[in-house]
């Protein structure tokens, strides 16, 4: 019967998701345990911060710029209708700081850094380099995973803060070019209407997104099965899982901090 088959598929899918969530939770526990007290490889942390920042800065900057501009374009008709040009900054600004900034930058970061990380860890797992570490009595969690998780968390937060600023700048540029509102008005609009709470709300989200992206990308990397093809599948799964986590976390944080 058709319904029965769909239910079975849904059930299997639900079980698979539950297993993944459980696995990520276990990994999170291991990471937290290695952080209290902090015993991790400092060199690896610095190296990863470097790599991940370099890799994602250009795309994040570009995305942020366009996102800011987009918000201005979307709010333009409404602002024009009310004749409230002074509110243009408010409309674009709060959307960027609270939602669009963290989400878009998070998605880009996940695609660029998260996926790369999964591919790297996955290849290392498949070629037994992870076992090699264990055989040398080096804990892969402390040496490999924790530095990457921390680096991604720190990087995403930093990138979101920077990206927010770039997005606001982009908004100002587009406002000038497309609906002819000058910098001073925009700046005043930002300053008058946006509060530190708005900013912190977004930063808080980026910390959560960073943790989610980092943990899921590491999890899918180290649980790769099936050789080369498995790595590709893991990358795919990691990116999708990160996107879903970002949406869910966004929802919960928005409501929880209301």
């Amino acid at each position, binding site marked *: 019967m058709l319904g029965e088959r769909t239910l079975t598929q849904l059930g299997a899918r639900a079980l698979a998701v539950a297993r993944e969530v459980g696995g990520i939770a276990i990994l999170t526990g291991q990471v937290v345990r290695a952080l209290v007290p902090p015993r991790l490889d400092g060199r690896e942390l610095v190296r990863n911060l470097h790599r991940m920042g370099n890799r994602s800065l250009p795309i994040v900057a570009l995305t942020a710029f*366009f996102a800011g501009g987009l918000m201005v374009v979307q709010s333009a008709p409404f602002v024009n209708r009310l004749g409230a040009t002074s509110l243009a900054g408010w409309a674009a600004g709060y959307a960027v700081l609270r939602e669009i900034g963290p989400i878009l930058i998070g998605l880009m970061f996940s695609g*660029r850094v998260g996926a790369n990380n999964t*591919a790297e860890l996955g290849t290392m797992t498949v070629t037994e380099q992870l076992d090699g570490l264990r055989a040398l009595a080096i804990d892969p969690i402390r040496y490999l995973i924790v530095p990457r998780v921390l680096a991604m968390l720190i990087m995403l937060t930093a990138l979101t803060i920077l990206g927010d600023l770039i997005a606001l700048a982009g908004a100002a540029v587009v406002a000038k070019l497309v609906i002819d509102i000058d910098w001073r008005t925009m700046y005043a609009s930002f300053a008058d209407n946006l509060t530190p709470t708005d900013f912190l709300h977004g930063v808080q989200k980026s910390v959560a997104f960073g943790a989610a992206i980092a943990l899921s990308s590491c999890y899918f990397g180290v649980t790769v099965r099936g050789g080369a093809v498995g790595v590709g599948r893991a990358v795919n799964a990691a990116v999708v899982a990160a996107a879903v986590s970002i*949406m869910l976390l966004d*929802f919960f944080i928005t409501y929880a901090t*209301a």
Partner: protein
Amino acid sequence: MTRPSLVERAARAVGRPALAAARATRDLWLVLVGVLAGVIRSYRPGGRRPPGALLEQLYVIGNRSLVFVAVTLGFIGMVMMYQACLQFSRAIGDLSQVGVQFLRLVVSDFGPTLTGMMLATRVGAGIAAEIGSMKVTEQLDALRMSGVLPIDYLLAPRFVASIVMTIALSLVGGAIMYGAGGLTAHLSFGVNPRTFFDPSLVLPRHLVLGLLKAACYGAAIPVVAGFCGLRARGSSEGVGWATTAAVVGSSFAVIAIDFALSVGALWLYGGEL
């Protein structure tokens, strides 16, 4: 030879990536042209089409992404509405306009764009991974040797399916987003559903803009993802990089197209939209 001067080094630092970008853009354009040509070739009378490929792609792209799109757009709709109501109360104090404005935005922008972003992640990665691994395992060469152009065979059905499904999913996703928003506005801020569900501000050109955006995203994603897949080199590691590039590239393409079309529409209708 003397060490290159500062000017020379600066020029090289800018020039090299600029040239690489220019070359990549040209190659991307070639892929787009190739795919369009492939589609036309397959659909003109007497053209060959791999049997069932289009249907299969419609299923892979559409059905498999439905839940993902529905869930994510639903959540985002709720969040956006929550934030909007919060800000509206703070700045204006009157929530009667939220519904109408939101509908206009969902139809002309958020529906298609957010759907596009989600599909860029899911579908883009899938296409790049498929084509990438076919490339590194030399299956593409095998196809060529049996007289089939990979672009026709592989990308053309995905191209058509992606456009169709992105439009369809945008409509579904947009509806869910709007509905979820209305629910939030009603439950958390007491907005009357009748006030909220008011299509009075939505004009035909909003719908056209939204559908056009969806179509463009649907076209862009397989082209960008296919381009990245075709450039995969080496081994499975190369496939991994191709997949990453595809996700980032298609996501960015969605944003850039959104920006371009929105600015174009604004300009066309003189700031009124």
